């Protein structure tokens, strides 16, 4: 009797552990498609009234009268910048390490999951993209991972077995 009780308790512990494991694995970074833009979204730009100074960050969900929620088009490509206190100069991440001259143009990476900085570490992301006026939700799950054994085998091949040509 006592043993069966103990087994029951252990089984309950196993179930609890399974639930907590699921919770941990569900802790992915969810990237929503909220509009974050260097340009002011939806301003009266035709009359030259595009809002504040350039460099303002405007969220697409803000500034809507009546609290109505909108689902804007996600930004084509958003850059990342350095922050800090009393910076003498600021840096942007793309194009790294500093902007190319203006006549060269700009590099746009239009698909967020394939941005190069995502490959810097192992992680999982989920991209949420609203469409059809908020009635549809497209979810994209991206897993950035390199299997250790396979990578080691590839390294052995590439560094020692491959014919250098």
């Amino acid at each position, binding site marked *: 009797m006592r043993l069966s009780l103990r087994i029951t308790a252990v089984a309950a512990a196993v179930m609890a552990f399974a639930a907590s494991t699921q919770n941990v694995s569900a802790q992915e970074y969810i990237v929503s498609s909220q509009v974050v833009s260097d340009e002011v979204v939806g301003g009266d730009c035709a009359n030259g009234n595009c809002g504040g100074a350039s460099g303002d960050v405007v969220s697409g969900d803000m500034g809507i009268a009546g609290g109505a929620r909108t689902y804007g088009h996600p930004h084509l490509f958003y850059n990342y*910048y350095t922050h*800090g206190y009393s910076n*003498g100069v600021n840096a942007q991440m793309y194009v790294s390490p500093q902007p190319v001259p203006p006549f060269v143009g700009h590099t746009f990476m239009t698909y967020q999951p394939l941005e190069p900085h995502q490959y810097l570490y192992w992680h999982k992301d989920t991209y949420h993209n609203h469409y059809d006026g908020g009635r549809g939700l497209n979810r994209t799950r991206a897993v950035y991972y390199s299997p250790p054994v396979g990578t080691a085998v590839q390294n052995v091949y590439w560094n020692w077995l491959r014919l250098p040509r």
Partner: protein
Amino acid sequence: MNRKILLQLLALVAVMCGSVEQASAEHPYTYTHRWAQRAAATYPWHGPYYNQQYQAPVALVVPPTAQMRQTYSWGVSQNLSYPIHHQFGVGAPGPGYSGLQGFRPTPQWPSHTDQFGTYYVRGPW
């Protein structure tokens, strides 16, 4: 028989404990992330030197999971390690390039790795 089942269940629990540790590797909103954010808001991301090639301090992108950086210099006990607090984030803070005001060139005889004008900034999550 029951003892065997009990042992098997315990082994299963042990295996799952190991998998839990692996699953909780990194997450953007840990308390160490908040520490780094707070510390980064108190000092600039760059040092006092500019990079000779780019004529400005250069932010070298490192993985967001990087934690410490090593500096080398001449002399006894001059090799120090510092935490990397700064991280690229959204929000354009202003001009991306303002010339060389306030920055020094790399000395002709550099004596410290910070004098090369390249500074680590962690990539975004």
